[in-house]
């Protein structure tokens, strides 16, 4: 187990270094920050001076080394727009995104687990057909549209909740549902097919033969066995949400990481974009590591093979 974690961390670091190189080179390709920071009528001398101040006249490997070594120390540079440390900016927004992600993942789980299990047990029933309809619609519906519809219905017409803001728990409902709908649909589908496979297996028959109550057959044995593929998806979803659900955060004016990256892109705030991409990469890797650990926790065969 410890070996698994250490190995994954090792590979994670290597991946992050590669990501940082790509981010570094791509951001160098997008244009000259010096030109962006200077007024339009700046002289050539001022431009050279600025380039020198920013260190952009140094060889590329040296620039990368400076970027990498300061990034390792937690210094991701300063935002051009906010004139503030990128790390500070990011950490201000992260808690909001975390809360939204928590709400969304909760929504995904309370919808997909019961629905996936129930429809697998009642295969080809009316409920199953209904749920399959929900899955198709949920997967097909784009969140920018679904979010606006929810807002129109529940905030404007019914006035149950406010359309924006995050001051009360009620404010979490619409963005969390918007964010979670597609994921809940995807999870339901994967869980259903996984459950159908597992419920058909011999060991489930054996559990019934020994007279185990159906509730335990379903939840203790079938669900745990069927949960590995959905867990992968859930890990990826969580990472995506944490990386900033850009569309949903923008629609609901949610002051999270997603909106930060949106704002950074709109104002060409390169240090922020760079940092967000790097941190998102780290989050994705961490989520995958967590999923791997959970696999091993659920399945002893994985535990022993590492």
């Amino acid at each position: 187990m410890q070996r698994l974690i250490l190995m994954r961390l090792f590979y994670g670091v290597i991946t992050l270094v590669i990501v940082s190189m790509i981010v570094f080179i791509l951001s160098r390709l997008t244009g000259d920050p010096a030109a962006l920071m200077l007024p339009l009528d700046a002289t050539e001398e001022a431009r050279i001076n600025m380039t020198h101040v920013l260190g952009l006249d140094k060889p590329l490997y040296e620039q990368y080394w400076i970027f990498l070594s300061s990034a390792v120390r937690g210094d991701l540079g300063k935002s051009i727009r906010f004139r503030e440390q990128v790390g500070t900016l990011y950490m201000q927004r992260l808690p909001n995104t975390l809360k939204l992600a928590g709400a969304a993942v909760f929504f995904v789980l309370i919808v997909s687990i019961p629905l996936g299990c129930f429809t697998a047990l009642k295969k080809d029933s009316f409920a199953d057909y209904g749920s399959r309809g929900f899955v198709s619609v949920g997967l097909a519906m784009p969140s920018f549209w679904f979010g606006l519809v929810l807002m129109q219905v529940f905030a404007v017409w019914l006035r149950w909740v406010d359309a924006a803001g995050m001051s009360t728990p009620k404010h979490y409902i619409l963005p969390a549902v918007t964010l979670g709908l597609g994921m809940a649909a995807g999870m339901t589908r994967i869980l259903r097919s996984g459950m159908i496979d597992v419920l058909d297996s011999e060991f489930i028959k054996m559990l019934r033969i020994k007279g185990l109550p159906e509730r335990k057959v379903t939840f203790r044995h079938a669900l745990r066995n069927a949960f590995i593929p959905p867990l992968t998806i859930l890990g990826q979803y969580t990472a995506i949400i944490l990386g900033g659900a850009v569309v949903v955060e923008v629609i609901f004016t949610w002051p999270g990481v997603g909106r930060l990256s949106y704002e950074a892109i709109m104002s060409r705030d390169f240090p922020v974009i760079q940092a967000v991409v790097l941190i998102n990469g780290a989050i994705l890797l961490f989520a995958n590591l967590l999923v791997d650990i959970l696999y091993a926790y659920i399945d002893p065969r994985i535990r022993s093979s590492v």
Partner: protein
Amino acid sequence: MSEVVSEINTLRSATRSSGQIALEIKDLKTYLYTRWGVVKAVDGVSLSLRDGECLGLVGESGCGKTMFGLSLMRLLPRPAGRIVGGEVLFNGEDIVKKSEAEMREIRGRQISMVLQDPMTALDPIFSVGRQLTETITISSDLKGPALLERAVELLRMVRIPAPAERLAAFPFQMSGGMRQRVVGAIALAQEPRILIADEPTTSLDVTTQANYLRLLKSLQERLNLTLIFITHDFGIVARVCHRVGVMYAGKLVELGDVEDIFDNPRHPYTKCLIDSVPKLDKRVTRLATITGQPPTLHDLPPGCSFRPRCTEAGTHCRPDQYPDPAMVGDRHYVRCWLYQ
């Protein structure tokens, strides 16, 4: 045949079918409603079993043996499988009419079953100990050390070496023979009266097979189990069973005591099956085979379903009707036009 008979005599216990009736099956019909039509998997099977008796149920794949076993457990594949007729009397009550909750009281505690493939019959992500203790606690209040002690005892009963250490093992860490023993321990954990063994040795290698059979036989005698042994191997039947039922296309075509069937098989199908078992006392260059395939069990024509493959078919076979059971010995019946 002499080897086989002597083996029967040595291996078969003295406990002879003098006990009380444990299970009485009357005209059981289990049909599968598939999209290709109705499959009559079990079509009017009647037999009765006494305490401590071992019945071998023989036939080719797809003749309805497994569906017969699952019918007794009321665990037919859903939604296709349904018992459409007949009675299964157990303790004077008809199992067919029991509710699902009542059946759960019977499963494991009264009637239990061992499945064919030990590689998939255990939950892969639970330890052997957990799967055993879970089974024990279904019908008992044992806790803590006493519960573990009982689990160890069960593993010892199925002759698993170092049973206490094995509790923490997972199924994937065990061999097929070992797993099948664990499945046996689980099936017997609640001390059922009847055990249905559905080809429990088919997927084991020959040495393991012999060991498992010996184990099953000794457990059957010690616990006075009523055993229904489903197999396609007549050799196994000879070593383990008191009586044999031969199934063909959902029907029980011949039923009798092991010696009667071996010495004097009546149904042409039974003869073919016995001839296809290799024998030590005869030098043969080719094993006998039964030509053709077993019929698919839906849309069977009236009349004997073995007729197309039968070497003794003739004008005596009436095409419009299935032959009724005819007694050809003391406890020996056969369904064939030859004996009508």
